[in-house]
C-alpha cells in the first residue's frame, strides 16, 4: 500500500459531470457525438458535435458530371435514397426547365412514399428500441423488408438505388409491380395497427414521451426544424402540399399535425404519416398513366448558367438542393444540400435542456436523424 492512492471517485463530483455520448454509442444512430453537461442526471447543456461522417459530397459533386451525382445522393440519406434521387433530379430539371412525363412523375411519387414508409419503419423501430421496447424494432424491419423487395424488383438494389434519371426514370416499372405495391399496402395497413397496439396507449410509452422535448410552433420554425418535427409542433408545413412536386398535386392526402410539440406528438404525426403515405401510394399505383418514362432530355446534360433552390419533402423533412451551374462545363459549379437531418439536429440542444440522460436518447430518436445526411 505504498503506491499513491488513486481516487477512483475523481470523475464523480457532486456538482457537474461532463458526459461524452458517442461517437460510439448504441443510440446515437451512427456517429453523432453529444457532449452533455450533467447536474446529477439532469442535462444542463449539450454540445452536439458532428462531422464524423463528412465525406465532402458537396465538393465531390463539383467534379462529377450531372448524372454521376445521382449516385452520390444515394449516400446521403441512405435509408431513403430514392427520395434524395428524386430531389436532385427535380432540381436539375427545374434548372433546365425540363418537362417530366406524367408516368414518371407517378412512379416517382410511389417511390417517394414507399421510401417514406421504409424510413418511418426504421424510425419507429429504433425510436422504440431507444425507449426500450425491443419488439417493435423487429416488427418494423419485417415490413421494411417488403419495401426493399419492391425496390429490388424496380431497380435491382436494396439500399442505394440510383433509381432516377434527369428527366424521368432509368427503367419502366416491371410488369405487375403496381399490383404488388397495392398488395403491400393491404399488408401494411394492419401492421401499423400492430405497432400502435404496442406503443400508442402503452402507459410507460406515454410517460416516457409526453411532455418530453416540448417546443412551440414558432420556436420550431425559427430553429429551422422541418418535417414531422415541425408538424408535431402544429405548424402546417409540408412541401408536398405547399410546393407540390412529382405528382403530389394530383393526390389527395392530409397533413397530420401535432398540438403540444412533444415527443409523443411527433410520434403520432409520423404514425399518421404512415397511413397518409399508404393513401397516396394507393391513388398513384391505381392511376399510373401510360406514356413515356423519360422526357425530352438532351444527350449531353448541360443546364444553362444560373442558380436555383428546390425542395422536396423527404421522410425527415425539407430536403433542399441549391445548385449553381456555370452553363459551360458538364458538372455543377456549386452543389449544396440542405439536409433535413442537419437542420433538425440543430434543435437537439434546445430540446434536451433540462431533461434527463434517458430523455436525450428518446429525443435523438424522436428527431429522426441519419448521420450520412447530417454530415454529407
Amino acid at each position, binding site marked *: 500500500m505504498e503506491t499513491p492512492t488513486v481516487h477512483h471517485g475523481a470523475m464523480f463530483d457532486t456538482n457537474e459531470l461532463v458526459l461524452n455520448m458517442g461517437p460510439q454509442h448504441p443510440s446515437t444512430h451512427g456517429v453523432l457525438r453529444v457532449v452533455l453537461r450533467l447536474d446529477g442526471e439532469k442535462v444542463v447543456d449539450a454540445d452536439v458535435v*458532428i*462531422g464524423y461522417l*463528412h465525406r*465532402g459530397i*458537396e*465538393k465531390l459533386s463539383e*467534379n462529377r458530371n450531372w448524372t454521376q451525382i445521382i449516385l452520390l445522393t444515394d449516400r446521403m440519406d441512405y435509408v431513403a435514397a430514392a427520395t434524395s434521387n428524386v430531389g436532385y433530379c427535380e432540381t436539375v430539371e*427545374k*434548372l433546365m*426547365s425540363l418537362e417530366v412525363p406524367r408516368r414518371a412523375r407517378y412512379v416517382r411519387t410511389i417511390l417517394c412514399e414507399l421510401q417514406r414508409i421504409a424510413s418511418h419503419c426504421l424510425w419507429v423501430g429504433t425510436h422504440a428500441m431507444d425507449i426500450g421496447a425491443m419488439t417493435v424494432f423487429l416488427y418494423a424491419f419485417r415490413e421494411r423488408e417488403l419495401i426493399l423487395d419492391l425496390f429490388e424488383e424496380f431497380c435491382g438494389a436494396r439500399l442505394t438505388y440510383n433509381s432516377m434519371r434527369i428527366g424521368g426514370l432509368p427503367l419502366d416499372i416491371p410488369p405487375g409491380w403496381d399490383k404488388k405495391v397495392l398488395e403491400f399496402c393491404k399488408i401494411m395497413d394492419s401492421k401499423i395497427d400492430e405497432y400502435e397496439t404496442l406503443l400508442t396507449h402503452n402507459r410507460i410509452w406515454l410517460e416516457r414521451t409526453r411532455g418530453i422535448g416540448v417546443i412551440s410552433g*414558432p420556436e420550431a*420554425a*425559427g*430553429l*429551422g*426544424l*422541418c418535417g414531422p418535427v415541425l408538424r408535431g409542433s402544429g*405548424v*402546417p*408545413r409540408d412541401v408536398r402540399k*405547399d*410546393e407540390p412536386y412529382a405528382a403530389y398535386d394530383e393526390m389527395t392526402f392530409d397533413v397530420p399535425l401535432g398540438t403540444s410539440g412533444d415527443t409523443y406528438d411527433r410520434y403520432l404525426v409520423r404514425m399518421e404519416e404512415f397511413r397518409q403515405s399508404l393513401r397516396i401510394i394507393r391513388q398513384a399505383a391505381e392511376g399510373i398513366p401510360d406514356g413515356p418514362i423519360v422526357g425530352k432530355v438532351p444527350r449531353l446534360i448541360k443546364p444553362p*448558367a*444560373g*442558380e*436555383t*433552390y428546390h*425542395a422536396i419533402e423527404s421522410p425527415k423533412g*425539407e430536403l*433542399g438542393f*441549391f445548385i*449553381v451551374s*456555370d*452553363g*459551360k462545363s458538364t458538372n455543377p*459549379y*456549386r452543389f*449544396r444540400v*440542405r439536409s433535413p437531418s*442537419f*437542420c433538425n439536429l*440543430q*434543435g437537439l440542444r*434546445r430540446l434536451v435542456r433540462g431533461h434527463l440522460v434517458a430523455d436525450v436518447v428518446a429525443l435523438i430518436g424522436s428527431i429522426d436523424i441519419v448521420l450520412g445526411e447530417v*454530415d*454529407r
Partner: protein
Amino acid sequence: MPDDPKAPEAHAPKAAVPAGPPDPAPPADLAPPAFLASLSEAIADGIAQTSYFVGDWTVVVPVARLLDVARHLCDAPDAAFDLCSDVTASDWPTRPQRFDVIYCLYSTRHRHRLRVKIRAAEHEGVPSVSGIWPGANWLEREVYDMFGVNVTGHPDRRRLLMPDDWQGHPQRKDYPLEGPGELLMENPIDWLKLRQARDEADIE
C-alpha cells in the same frame, strides 16, 4: 486560425472560372411579389438588385443592410419569412467580392420563398442572422467552416464539420484537391509518428 495565406496562392484559380452567376433580371411582364415592393419602401437602399430565374425570386442586398433587411423580412406581416431554410455560399475567386452568401427564406404563413443574396469579400465581416433565425446558427457555422466567410456576431463560431485544427476552407474553389494530410503522405513514417503523437496528446 482563419486563413492560411500560403495555401490559396499555391493553386491559383484557372482562367476558365466564371465571374459569377448571371442573376437575370425579371421579365418585364412579371410583377415582383408585393413584399419586395414594401421591402424597398421600408428600407430604401435595401435591394441592390432583383432577379428572377426558373421561378425563383432573388434579391441582392448590400452587406451593410443585411440585418435590417432580414429583420424586416422576418417581421413584416406581408413577408413573414419565419423559416430560414438554408444559408449557404458560393465562391467566385476571380471577383473582388468573391463570396456569394445565400439565404433561402420561407414563410410558413404565406407559403412563399425568397432568396436573399449578399456579396462579400474575403475578410469582409458578414453579420450573423442567427439572432433573427436561431436556425441559421449551424448553417452559418458551416459556411464559415467550408468557405471561411467571416461571419461576425455569431454566438458560437467554431468549425462544424471539419476538425477544429483543420487548415484552410475546403469548399473554396482554390482549395487544393489534395489536402494537407495527403501531402504528408509523401513521408508516411514521419506522418504516422506525428499523428500518433497528436492522438496521444488528445487522449491525455
